């Protein structure tokens, strides 16, 4: 549904007060669940998501194990109270698809060959959803995997860009998702500069597509800084220099 001029005003301010290149407020905490091998909690705008990682661990049933690498399994799930209309707890088709693309977004970063005949389980639970929950989930999952100490080439940072009122904007919110013209969630290996998730729905001309892609990548890089800060804070506190390790 195209509504020109309603989602961005003349000053370039969006419905939630942001400029077109601004991210929503993000907060990331590491190591929030005691039993999990690794965990994290993220607030991305109004999204509230908790992630647990269990693994590497033995695979059951044994015949599901691969002889030369670990099997990565992801479950993206929304709590019944996370959305406006109560959602049935059983996995929906949307959740199953997001679970798949999440796994495919995280796998390129992981060095699964290091853990033959094991499984790594990633559980993403959306406690409150608000547009871009899959990006927030991937961002938090990457942090939880690092917390679990799984060998990774890079973190995976994720963010969406889109087109709203004929303008390319960064990190679209719920309203922009529903009323806007295009939505492109993206995930990136920030140091290796490789894209691991890309989806799009809407209509974008060729140069709009490129601009949207660049905008999403810039967003991912900003998200990456926050992931790093959260991990450094948890593991190293306020220390900056390492010093004498005696």
């Amino acid at each position, binding site marked *: 549904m195209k509504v020109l001029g309603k989602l961005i005003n003349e000053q370039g301010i969006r419905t939630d007060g942001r400029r077109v290149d601004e991210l929503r407020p993000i907060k990331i905490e590491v190591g929030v669940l005691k039993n999990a091998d690794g965990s994290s909690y993220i607030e991305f705008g109004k999204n509230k998501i908790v992630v647990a990682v269990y*693994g590497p661990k033995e695979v059951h049933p044994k015949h599901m194990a691969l002889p030369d690498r670990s099997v990565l399994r992801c479950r993206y799930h929304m709590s019944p109270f996370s959305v406006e209309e109560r959602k049935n707890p059983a996995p929906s088709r949307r959740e199953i698809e997001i679970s798949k693309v999440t796994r495919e977004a995280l796998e390129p970063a992981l060095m699964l060959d290091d853990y033959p*005949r094991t499984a790594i389980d990633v559980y993403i639970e959306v406690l409150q959803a608000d547009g871009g929950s899959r990006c927030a989930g991937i961002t938090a999952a990457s942090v939880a995997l690092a917390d679990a*100490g799984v060998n990774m080439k890079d973190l995976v940072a994720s963010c969406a860009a889109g087109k709203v009122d004929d303008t390319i904007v960064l990190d679209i919110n719920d309203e922009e998702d529903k009323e806007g013209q295009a939505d492109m969630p993206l995930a990136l290996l920030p140091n290796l500069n490789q894209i691991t998730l890309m989806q799009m729905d809407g209509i974008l001309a060729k140069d709009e597509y490129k601009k949207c892609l660049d905008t999403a990548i810039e967003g991912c890089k900003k998200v990456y800084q926050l*992931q790093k800060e959260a991990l*450094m804070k948890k593991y190293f506190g306020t220390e900056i220099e*390492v010093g004498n390790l*005696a």
Partner: protein
Amino acid sequence: MQEIKRKYVVPGDLITDDNVRPVSNVIKIGDKIYATRIGIAEVATDGVKVIPLSGIYFPRVGDLVIGKVIDHSAMAWELDINSCFSGHLPAQDVFGKEFSPSREDLTSRLRTGDLIACKIAAFDRSRDPLLTVADKDLGKIPKGEVVRISPTRVPRLIGKRGSMIQTIEQSTGCKIIIGQNGITVVSGASTDGILLAVKAIKMVEEEAHTANLTQRVKDMLQSSIGESIGQIDQ
């Protein structure tokens, strides 16, 4: 002594692009070396490694580990060694080469729930780790307080040439068995000694990434012992 440059890193951090040899927990892409774990990167002239601060225990041949018996077949016990694989302890290792399942029952020696100090005798990518108790000081642990720490902190708990663990043992009058898999067992005559040893172990786990830890642990132990002596004098 060669100079070692140290830096705190998270996965994906570029450590150096000096074309140095990658040693552990790093990945080399072209001339660049990136960290693959959260930890302390050490760059020396002969190689780059990251000392990880998180991660499960990955079995290594020769490691002393403390395992818990969780199951058994007619021929072997299965142990939870706090890793991504279970350990297998063959009956013959305990009963001897003449072991026969028809004559002897595994549970007569080791049962589900027993804690065992054992060594990893064999392990490769195609099978679960093989354990052995056929060595001095190995076997069922009869008593003690179990303290679990992250396996990544074990080297710090042991210290250079055992300096850290000896300090703790001497100050508290306890004996501490440390498994490379992060399971430790503290035994001693005095309850206060055991509590103090547990406190010291947890302190090392918490502050493993900081400098001058050995001295601070020493100070903590001294002041705690000083307090209790003070109380006795009163």
